[in-house]
């Protein structure tokens, strides 16, 4: 918005101010992408762990009763999570607790760190409840169904992510983009940066800013940057012209 407004100000675009604004956007975008990748990584970890747990369960169906199965799953969950790169211990704890427990306990959110948000995906019309990054789908799930539903939700979220990146190309359609990103934003309770949702909205509208800034964080932005670069908007060209 600031960059857009400066185009109509007297005296023309202020290069310095717009450069600084682009830095803010870049910083916000970096945080956003870091969180996204971290989230995806966590989901992948969880998937792998659940797959392994299920395989163990399948291999020994007669030896274990339901309770022991839960314990073992919890055990292997716990071990793997400890091995994994945890950024939010609260998240893993909630996973371990909730995966083996009955469905009706899922709705009881005892974890104080969790943010519960219910959103509607405009594309697939699926209602999703997000719980500090751990997604519950609106279905009746027990221990066995939770894993596949989590998997499918993870897949769905991966799809959503690609929606997100492709939206960087569509700067005109920012209203829809904002709704999608809003949903993604709800996934992260970013305690440190309270303005993330606003800033990610800004990111969607204005693209990625100067590519010279992007190239610094290549490891995090490999996937996003290519699509984002392709979507550099008219405002950067305007700055070039002046």
């Amino acid at each position, binding site marked *: 918005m*600031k960059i857009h407004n400066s185009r109509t100000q*007297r*005296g*023309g675009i*202020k*290069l*310095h*101010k717009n*450069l*600084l604004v682009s*830095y*803010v956007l870049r*910083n*916000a975008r970096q*945080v956003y992408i870091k969180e996204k990748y971290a989230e995806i990584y966590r989901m992948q970890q969880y998937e792998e762990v659940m797959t392994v747990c299920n395989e163990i369960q399948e291999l020994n169906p007669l030896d274990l009763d339901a309770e022991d199965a839960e314990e073992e799953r919890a055990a292997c969950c716990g071990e793997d999570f400890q091995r994994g790169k945890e950024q939010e211990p609260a998240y893993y704890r909630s996973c371990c607790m909730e995966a083996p427990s009955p469905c009706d306990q899922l709705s009881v959110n005892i974890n104080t760190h969790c943010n519960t948000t219910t959103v509607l995906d405009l594309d697939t019309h699926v209602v999703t409840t997000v719980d500090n990054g751990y997604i519950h789908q609106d279905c009746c799930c027990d221990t066995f169904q939770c894993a596949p539903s989590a998997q499918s939700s993870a897949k769905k979220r991966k799809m959503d992510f690609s929606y997100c990146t492709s939206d960087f190309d569509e700067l005109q359609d920012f209203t829809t983009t904002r709704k999608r990103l809003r949903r993604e934003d709800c996934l992260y309770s970013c305690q440190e*940066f*309270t*303005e993330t949702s606003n*800033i990610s909205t800004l990111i969607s509208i204005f693209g990625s800013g*100067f*590519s*010279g*800034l992007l190239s610094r964080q290549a490891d995090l932005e490999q996937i996003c940057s290519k699509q984002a670069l392709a979507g*550099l908007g008219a405002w*950067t060209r305007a*700055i*070039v*012209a*002046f």
Partner: protein
Amino acid sequence: MGEDTESTKINHTFLRDYVTEADVISTVEFNQTGDLLATGDKGGRVVIFQRETESKGESEEVGDTGDSGEYNVYSTFQSHEPDFDYLKSLEIEEKINKIRWLPQQNAAHFLLSTNDKTIKLWKVSERDKRPEGYNLKDEEGRIKDVSTITSLQVPVLKPTDLMVEVRPRRVFSNGHTYHVNSISVNSDGETYLSADDLRINMWHLGITDRSFNIVDIKPANMEDLTEVITSAEFHPHHCHLFVYSSSKGTLRLCDMRASALCDKHAKLYEEPEDPGSRSFFSEIISSVSDVKFSHSGRYMLTRDYLTAKVWDLHMDKGPVETYQVHEYLRSKLCSLYENDCIFDKFECVWNSSDSVIMTGAYNSFFRMFDRETGRGVTLEAWRESSKPRAVLRTRHVYTGGKRRRGDVGVDSLDFSKKILHMAWHPAENIIAIAATNNLYIFQDRVNPDALTQ
């Protein structure tokens, strides 16, 4: 401009803002002797104040009250007009970005004034005599009827009322693609530099159709742009040295003897970033808004959004002194970004002996720091709290602990009242503070203790 009266308290604030937008002072500068003070405003006007000469002799005595010279309006002229760049369809603001006086060489005074694109050299001269007794024209200048002339007379100079004439002597145009942010006169008295966002040009005062580009940081591809030039200044004594500051918080000292194009700096002054204080706005608050050499030429003073720093030319690893101007704003950066205040460019100045530095803040506050003790005071430039000849009392912003009477809370600071521009008399403790459309001139009673109260 100092006599601007406050309009009655009708709720026409939007109208008042519109009307006085052009009166907002955008630059303040003393000349080399301090007798003249020039201000430029957003409307492209320059107002020159002159110190009263009657009390000039007396004011040099220590402790004299009431005799210190006052500054009165000497001359007013329109320096720049609004312009239009037809090629780019861009309006060029007439706002005066900087004024710099030339060293005086004869009876006339010269100053450079610049807006975003064009620099002008003005000659300010006095006329107190005029010739009278022309043969061919009468007193009003009308041509006489030749048949009425019976004798010849020699015109003589007669004293007349003092008239101050200001004439443009040079116009330095088309030198800059981007917005000019600084000009600086060289100690050689012949050249000066002008800096915009990406380039610095060197001009000769006598030549207007050519300038020499000495710094160019424009990348081949504008999308690779990472920093811009924010301020530049010549060294006060060495005519081959100049410094420029960047939006990344670095200073570059350049030596023009090394090469024609000074893209490679002779010295780079940079403070390593503290990773613990990283935030969304780290780049914005580290951008240097002003750089000034000390009178001695040994130090540089820089201002970024929250601090003022003194750098030793001999040490490039970091500043030798850092002064927190308004650290209490660090937690408010988000809202300051929203209301654009985080982009405000504050100036900073040295006193005549380089022992005190001064810079502006919000709520009409400005701060002075004594370099020897490291202590700072907060003062206010606000008409209701300062009568003529009254002693300015120090102010305090409440940030925690015991609250004293008169303390101002951080949330009640008025961010529309910002002190961006200021100047310090080159020899005495007289300061000129620009507060929006008002100019305040404060004088110290040459008492060093007063500054540290």
